[in-house]
């Protein structure tokens, strides 16, 4: 991080003079009276590093800053009658910086998110942003974000932004940057295939570049608002009132038009209630009948994932168990190695290896196939391999638990070993094997929740997405837990029932 430095922001006076000259100042503000000078300046933090069009160093005069937020700050100075001092601060540290009291407010394209709202106080929004996908001018593979995702292309964006979260939710492969210049540079250089960022950024950095083009419609919608410490309600209220006036006076529109970021969306800013209402409204829209079908879809994926993985695990487990029990020495060693390896590594790591590393291996050794498994197939393969090791051990123990006398009795009746295994040993072993196998099924059922890391939208992932969108963490969490229980509790009973029924008489 850069050393923090206080900057005397010098643009205000000039513009103030201009504005005075234009006669646009609305009446009734405290501007220019004696109290303005008496009050200490407000400290404003933002990240000016590559921060256009929000705030950035003026190329003509590196001591000064420009940007629509600089213009906005001037308006606030006038409306509030207080000086505003700018302080450079890393974007991702703005929230902790506020809490530490390093400055009075943060205005830097800060998106209103449920997470941030827990930590800081927001003013009413001053800009409705949308997201814009940008690609190289010659791009022909996709014409929308969806197509880009289907083609599994790499999308760059800023970390900890709405765009990054959207890409997460849509399970894109993404590359995260901590400044808004590099994504477009990497895009131009072909390191990434597209960039998804807030429209103001795209307007400023991508539109002027002939090698880049806008792709598809504007997406998503969110609010920039000014962040305050939670105990600064009074200050936040003053900003809200000031913002109202700046909008009504037409200044806000003028500033945005000057920076090419005005659009009709902005009309909505002051048509309705406050931002809290907007969030409440969105939360109200996530009713049970809206989110439950989505949760059910996730539950179906979970069930499919569980049973297909278990089938694969069983198909792997039996031959491995038989190899360990009766195979020739090399096969026995290979089976033991299999069990030790796949039982010994975390399934999470295994999923990563299958999903992310296999394609690389295929590419490096010029294999005639890609090994680029779809997420769902990769998940089944990962769990199948992992649980196959567990099943192999359960089967081995189950088969060994049948007394050797059973083999001998069958042999004395002229039965061959394979026949004896199939007709006499296996049917008995299955009764020993089934209860622990049902247990594994319940465990697998819940383990499948880790596949969200390779972007399979099963029940837990669906919960994460829905609860974040609606902020109904508790309600949707309980609904999700209920779905898990509805499915896993009967399995547990089945396990106990089988144990009771088949544990007898053997």
């Amino acid at each position, binding site marked *: 991080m850069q050393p923090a430095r206080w900057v005397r922001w010098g643009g205000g006076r000039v513009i103030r003079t201009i504005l005075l000259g234009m006669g646009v100042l609305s009446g009734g503000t405290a501007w220019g009276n004696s109290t303005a000078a008496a009050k200490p300046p407000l400290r404003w933090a933002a990240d000016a590093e590559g921060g256009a069009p929000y705030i950035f160093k003026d190329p003509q005069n590196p001591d000064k800053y420009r940007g629509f937020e600089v213009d906005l700050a001037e308006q606030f100075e006038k409306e509030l009658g207080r000086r505003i001092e700018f302080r450079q601060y890393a974007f991702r540290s703005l929230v902790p910086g506020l809490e530490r009291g390093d400055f009075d407010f943060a205005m830097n394209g800060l998106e209103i998110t449920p997470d941030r709202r827990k930590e800081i106080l927001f003013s009413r929004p001053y800009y409705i942003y949308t997201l814009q996908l940008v690609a190289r001018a010659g791009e022909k593979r996709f014409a929308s974000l969806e197509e880009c995702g289907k083609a599994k292309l790499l999308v760059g964006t800023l970390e900890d932004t709405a765009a990054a979260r959207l890409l997460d939710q849509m399970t894109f492969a993404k590359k995260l940057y901590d400044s808004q210049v590099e994504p477009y540079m990497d895009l131009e250089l072909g390191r990434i295939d597209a960039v998804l960022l807030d429209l103001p950024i795209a307007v400023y950095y991508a539109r002027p570049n002939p090698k880049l083009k806008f792709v598809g419609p504007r997406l998503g919608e969110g609010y920039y608002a000014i962040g305050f410490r939670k105990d600064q309600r009074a200050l936040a209220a003053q900003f809200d009132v000031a913002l109202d006036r700046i909008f009504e006076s037409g200044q806000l529109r003028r500033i945005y038009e000057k920076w090419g970021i005005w659009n009709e969306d902005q009309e909505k800013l002051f048509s309705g209630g406050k931002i809290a209402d907007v969030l409440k409204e969105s939360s109200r829209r996530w009713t049970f009948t809206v989110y439950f079908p989505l949760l059910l879809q996730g539950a179906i994926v979970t069930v499919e994932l569980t049973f297909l993985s278990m089938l694969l695990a069983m198909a792997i487990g039996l031959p491995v168990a038989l190899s360990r029990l009766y195979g020739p020495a090399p096969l026995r060693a290979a089976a033991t190695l299999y069990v030790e390896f796949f039982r010994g590594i975390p399934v999470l790591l295994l999923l990563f290896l299958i999903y992310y590393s296999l394609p690389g291996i295929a590419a490096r050794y010029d294999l005639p196939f890609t090994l680029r498994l779809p997420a769902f197939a990769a998940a089944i393969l990962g769990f199948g391999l992992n649980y196959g090791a567990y099943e192999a051990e359960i089967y081995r123990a189950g088969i060994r638990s049948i*007394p050797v*006398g*059973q083999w*001998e*009795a*069958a*042999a*004395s*009746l*002229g*039965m*061959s070993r394979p*026949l004896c295994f199939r*007709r*006499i040993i296996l*049917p*008995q072993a299955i*009764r020993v094997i089934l209860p622990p196998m049902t247990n594994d099924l319940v465990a697998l059922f819940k383990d499948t929740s880790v596949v969200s890391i390779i972007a399979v939208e099963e029940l837990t992932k669906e919960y994460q997405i829905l609860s974040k969108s609606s902020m109904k963490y508790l309600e949707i969490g309980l609904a999700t837990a209920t779905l898990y229980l509805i499915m896993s509790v009967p399995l547990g009973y089945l396990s106990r029932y089988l144990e009771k029924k088949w544990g*007898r*008489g*053997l």
Partner: protein
Amino acid sequence: MSHPLPVVINNVRKRFGERVVLDGMNLSVAAGETVAVIGPSGGGKSTLLRCINGLNTFDEGEIRVGSFILGPGGNHNHTAGVQQVRRLFGMIFQDFQLFPHLTALENVIEAPVHVLKQPRAEAQRRGRELLARVGLADRANAHPRELSGGQKQRVAIARAMAMDPRGLLCDEITSALDPELKSEVLTVLEALKREGLTLIVVTHEMGFARRAADRVVVLDAGRVIEDGPPSQVLEHPQMPRTQRFLSEVLS
């Protein structure tokens, strides 16, 4: 019933690690003969039966069952493999070893259907017949856990008989039974003797040996130490080892 087969054991040696179990064993059993094998535990009685059945291999000598010749290390002269000798002689175990997941009838028809490839209906008809002969016509659909020890052992006998063997090897088949259940099993065995099967019976039941055996053979330390008709071996044993064993068993 097919004709019974003779068994000849010729100088068979068998060791488990350091321990010599069969020490140059010689024994001939004529076709249709019933031989009671007695002797102190550890004398090699069970091992002898298991070698005849091919469940254990041996190190030296030879065992002939009819024309089937078993040699050291599991070698044999039959193209159908060691399973063939097992079809000739059925084996009954001390602990029954019924298949617990199958009913009595299913236990009996399992090998006829899957080894002899008999039609299921035919095998079931024969199976019911056999169960009737061991007095269990009404227990055909019972699972082993629902049967008493004596009933289990009678099912095991029916199961062995279903393969139409030329003889039976019985390994202390009443040892796990209460006294009142022993007789029901031994009665079945005596009936099989009357049908002319070759029976080699390892037993501690001196009453049965005296009543039903044509010969009594005494095994000790892997050798036959006494061999003769029951009246001679049981009433007038020649060897001091036999005398001591008999006095211990009868007391």
